[in-house]
């Protein structure tokens, strides 16, 4: 199992990121626990799907891995680097290992820079000043993501959404990172374009031996691309394991609710008993006990007071539910 791999590329141990909120004249300071005790590993060449709804902390987790927010406690180890509350990330060094592909290619590219400049700047910043080498690497990465060489001198507005996302991917890969965080990489694209980008990401992963963390709310995409899947809810991982087990034998009621919520014309089975009720509570005041108990179809007395630990169902498949041994 990937959990037992001796040297994971990314290892996160008991990571917490808390944001203090308020603390004005009259109000007491409150703490938003965006990420609250997360442990994860990503092996070289592996794709981890990260699933969760808005406010579950997946973006904060991504920012922590990118070194953009400091952990409140816990440890992130990426290749040879460590990030913790006391040890800040060395951004220049980290950028050579971890990069990110953003959701909205209309917002994440500088409209005043040509593709060439967008791709060449990171190289120069990282001391690759030799003009022929820069040219060579820009041309090489453009070919890899399916852009034509003559498009290098164009500006982002001259490209369609799918092509812009190709530029975004090229920018993420130009420094030859080992881990790429893909934050909803296709959800801003036209439906008929999504397959192109998903196929491209998978090809690049195989060709370049990349690891991905694929953040998405689209379970169809996550199932298609992931080797392992982690499901987050209100700052915690509620279930993780091999993709096949997560989708075929989900043990956390929240995972089941997410799967049941996907409209699919091919699978019109009755899933009413698995749906979650109501809405996600505020992360500022998560419910006591199991965070999911307010929406859970299986809720029992115990869930309101005791927070279930993330424990194994099978080797490599963990779920944080008092009833994790109850199959659907």
């Amino acid at each position, binding site marked *: 199992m990937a959990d037992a791999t001796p040297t994971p590329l990314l290892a996160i141990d008991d990571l917490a990121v808390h944001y203090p909120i308020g603390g004005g004249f009259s109000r007491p300071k409150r703490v938003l626990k965006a990420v609250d005790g997360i442990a994860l590993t990503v092996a070289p060449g592996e794709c981890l799907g990260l699933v969760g709804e808005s406010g579950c902390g997946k973006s904060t987790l991504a920012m922590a891995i990118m070194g953009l927010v400091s952990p409140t406690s816990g440890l992130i180890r990426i290749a040879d680097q460590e990030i913790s509350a006391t040890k800040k990330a060395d951004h220049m060094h980290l950028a050579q290992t971890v990069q990110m592909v953003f959701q909205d290619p209309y917002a994440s590219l500088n409209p005043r820079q040509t593709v060439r400049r967008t791709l060449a700047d990171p190289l120069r910043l990282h001391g690759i000043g030799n003009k022929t080498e820069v040219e060579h690497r820009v041309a090489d990465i453009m070919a890899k993501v399916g852009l034509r060489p003559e498009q290098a001198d164009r500006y982002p507005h001259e490209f369609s959404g799918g092509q812009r996302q190709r530029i975004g991917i090229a920018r993420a890969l130009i420094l030859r990172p080992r881990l790429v965080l893909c934050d909803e990489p296709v959800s801003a694209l036209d439906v*008929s374009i999504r397959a192109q980008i998903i196929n491209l990401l998978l090809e690049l992963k195989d060709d370049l031996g990349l690891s991905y963390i694929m953040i998405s709310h689209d379970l*169809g995409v996550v199932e*298609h691309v992931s080797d392992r899947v982690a499901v987050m809810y209100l700052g915690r991982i509620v279930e993780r394991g091999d993709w096949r087990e997560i989708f075929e034998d989900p043990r956390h009621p929240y995972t089941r609710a*997410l799967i049941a919520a996907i409209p699919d*014309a091919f699978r019109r089975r009755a899933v009413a008993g698995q749906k979650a009720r109501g809405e*996600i509570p505020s992360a500022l005041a998560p419910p006591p006990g199991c965070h999911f108990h307010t929406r859970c179809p299986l809720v029992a007395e115990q869930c309101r007071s005791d927070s279930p630990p993330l424990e194994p169902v099978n080797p490599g498949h963990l779920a944080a539910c008092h009833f994790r041994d109850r199959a659907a």
Partner: protein
Amino acid sequence: MSTPLLEVENLSIALSQGGKSYKAVEDVSFAIAPGETLGLVGESGCGKSITALAVMGLLRHPLGLGGGRITLDGSDIHNLPPAKLRQLRGKRIAMIFQEPMTALNPLSTVGRQIAEMFVLHAGANWSEATDRAVDALRQVHVPSPERRVKDFPHQLSGGMRQRVMIAIALACSPDLLIADEPTTALDVTVQAEIVDLMQELCAAKGTAILMISHDLGLVANMCRRVAVMYAGRIVEQQAAAEIFERPQHPYTRGLIASLPRLGARVVHGRQRLQEISGVVPAITAFPAGCRFRPRCQRATDICQSNDPSPTPLPENGLVRCHHHG
């Protein structure tokens, strides 16, 4: 099929830009029977939202009606004077939008925004209308509605706001509800609840639904019939079950094959997704002949020279392709 409630015939919508006029929507026809659900599916820019606006009589410059007929219960509604249209909107045809925060008035309580419907369309006075607003909120399963009527939109979550939108839209039990991407801004578990709620209430009130979405799966799940739009035209229209089992247009077939479907990998292993090459054409540059031709694997010479006309399919279906099937 019984007498249609709404009938749109050969609708075209003109976009004027830079002194030129383009047809953003052309020759769109569909009908919705009382209580029926029709899904209108397409990508951004295909004209599905402006088709809905045309039905509501809400097209504004640079968009304008270019031709065709829109009839409700057999009477023409697209040339009605504004005052008559206002009586129709909300009472007989209601609409919910994608982003409830921008569609609700931020300066008015949700109770007042619902009550307004009863005052304007049902002749109620304000105190009676406010009581009915509480009931309306209860119907959309908003907890403690007596308290919530006094809330402003910003005090509610996205899902609650969309419930309020539904309460407003269905306040006067309209004959037709137009829902334009009603769940796109919501999380998936909330989306499932909102869809269930819309279906439950519309079934109870006998309201027909025109559901507009880019999500083929969502539409096929909740609608009896589905119309697929591409570049300003309906390219295929069929029963929902049929369109998934036997898509006739290459675009529909491509869309269905290009999406990773939940459960597919378990059965078939990971297969490369089928791509639809190219991009959606801009309104200002629709290709001649069949508009899908530049992206179509079946395209031949006739697709360039001849615009395919709609071919009827069983049960009021149609497909617009020279090489369908």
